[in-house]
């Protein structure tokens, strides 16, 4: 698949900001990030080493819910990079993050996938309601954001009642992917970025525009952070062209 490479905005200010911490004081940053961000973020952190050699960034990847709990319990963290707004909002309401630092950095697409070698029976979201599909894998709408978006989409299409009868719920997107990958379900709904990591699945369709609230990945500085400046600098860098192009590469939609 071709990575969407149109990302013109916000490159200039970011590159200037990125210069400043290189002269700044040494700092250790801990960034709590959703597990789905592992690959791009690792790349960016490696690149940041050349931009700000004094700053050591340690990522800790887990599910957004776990990260939220950790911050609530006072885990020593500087930046929270969530895969959904729900956790971010919860922390915001708890007064645990610096509200002004909150940025909706990335977007993702909800896609319908099928096993790669499956006979093409499913052509789009509409077909899920037909007999072509006997089982569909979704994230648990109650706990998995991707599942919530999927529910929204089918609600928008007025298909939820029929679809939910065939649905099997995973506790995270990875599971949904595994089930589709191994052919144990006919199709599944995941993020586009996840779909791109698995060569045994193929993307059939993206969710129609407006069928769900946008999938955004917000990030913010944790209030308890003792490195507010360095954290702000890194968040700036994440908004730079250099960084965004990395996200781009892994299939994220950058503004």
């Amino acid at each position, binding site marked *: 698949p071709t990575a969407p490479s149109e990302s013109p905005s916000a490159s200039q200010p970011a590159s200037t900001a990125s210069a400043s911490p290189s002269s700044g004081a040494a700092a250790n940053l801990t960034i709590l990030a959703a597990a789905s961000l592992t690959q791009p973020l690792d790349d960016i952190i490696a690149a940041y080493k050349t931009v700000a050699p004094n700053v050591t960034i340690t990522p800790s990847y887990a599910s957004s*819910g776990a990260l939220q709990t950790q911050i609530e319990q006072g885990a020593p963290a500087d930046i929270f990079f969530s895969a959904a707004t729900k956790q971010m909002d919860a922390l915001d309401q708890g007064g645990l993050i610096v509200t002004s630092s909150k940025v909706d950095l990335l977007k993702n697409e909800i896609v319908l996938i099928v096993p790669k070698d499956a006979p093409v029976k499913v052509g789009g979201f509409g077909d899920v309601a037909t007999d072509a599909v006997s*089982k569909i894998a979704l994230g648990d709408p*109650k*706990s998995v954001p991707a599942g919530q978006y999927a529910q929204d989409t089918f609600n928008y299409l007025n298909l939820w009642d029929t679809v939910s009868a065939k649905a*099997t719920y995973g*506790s995270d997107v990875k*599971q949904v992917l*595994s*089930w589709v990958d191994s052919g*144990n379900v006919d199709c599944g709904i995941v993020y586009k970025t996840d779909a791109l990591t698995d060569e045994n699945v193929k993307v059939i369709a993206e969710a129609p525009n407006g069928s769900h609230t946008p999938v955004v990945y917000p990030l913010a500085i944790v209030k308890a952070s003792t490195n507010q400046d360095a954290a702000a600098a890194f968040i700036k860098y994440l908004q730079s062209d250099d960084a965004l192009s990395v996200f781009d590469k892994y299939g994220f939609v950058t503004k």
Partner: protein
Amino acid sequence: MDYSPLWISLRTALVATVFAVIIGIVAAYYVIRLGRLLKGIADGILTLPMVLPPTVVGFFLLVFFGIHGPAGRFFLAVFHERIVFSWYAPIIASTVVAFPLMYRTMRGAFEQFDQTLVYAAQTLGLSNTFIFWRIILPGSRYSMIAGTVLAFARGLGEFGATIMLAGNLPGKTTTLSVAVYAAMAAGDNALAYKYVLIDLVISFAVMLVMNLVTGEPSRRRRKNIPAAKGGI
């Protein structure tokens, strides 16, 4: 509140414990006969489901029992049944994860068993089956209980492998552990705690019953009497 996870969990844990106990005992029985090197290898293989993170175990199970996997294809062909997402998928997952506990505990017990009694039985011409069932197993009952309790606990707490192989189908495959996880992930801590409470009640009940039932006869009789364990 939905009580189905309770029943599913009970069913899963009980059936899985039974399987784990049987398979564990059989495995232990054969492994102690091996040479030391082979024993180590057997240990390595049979303890694998404990060493690997449950999700990984679940993933392998999915591949193995999935419709493209060898076991999955076999079942589909012979029984016209899909294993993945079925009501017995949690049982399979729990069994696989719990059985190393029984296996290892029983291996220890068998190795510790007083060989004199085995020899005595052999010279009486008793069959190996009799020796095993009527002499060695009863003599290892405390370890058997330990292994069973552990297997049951693990079966009850199992979640990673279960959800991978069985999914989270309310009323069908959603065990307590899965329900707890889901409720927590959904931020519904109140519900999660309720399920945790049920978990606790079950496990306490089982532990109590296990402790009240077992050792009963020998205990009463042994009280104050030095166990002369076949000695004069």
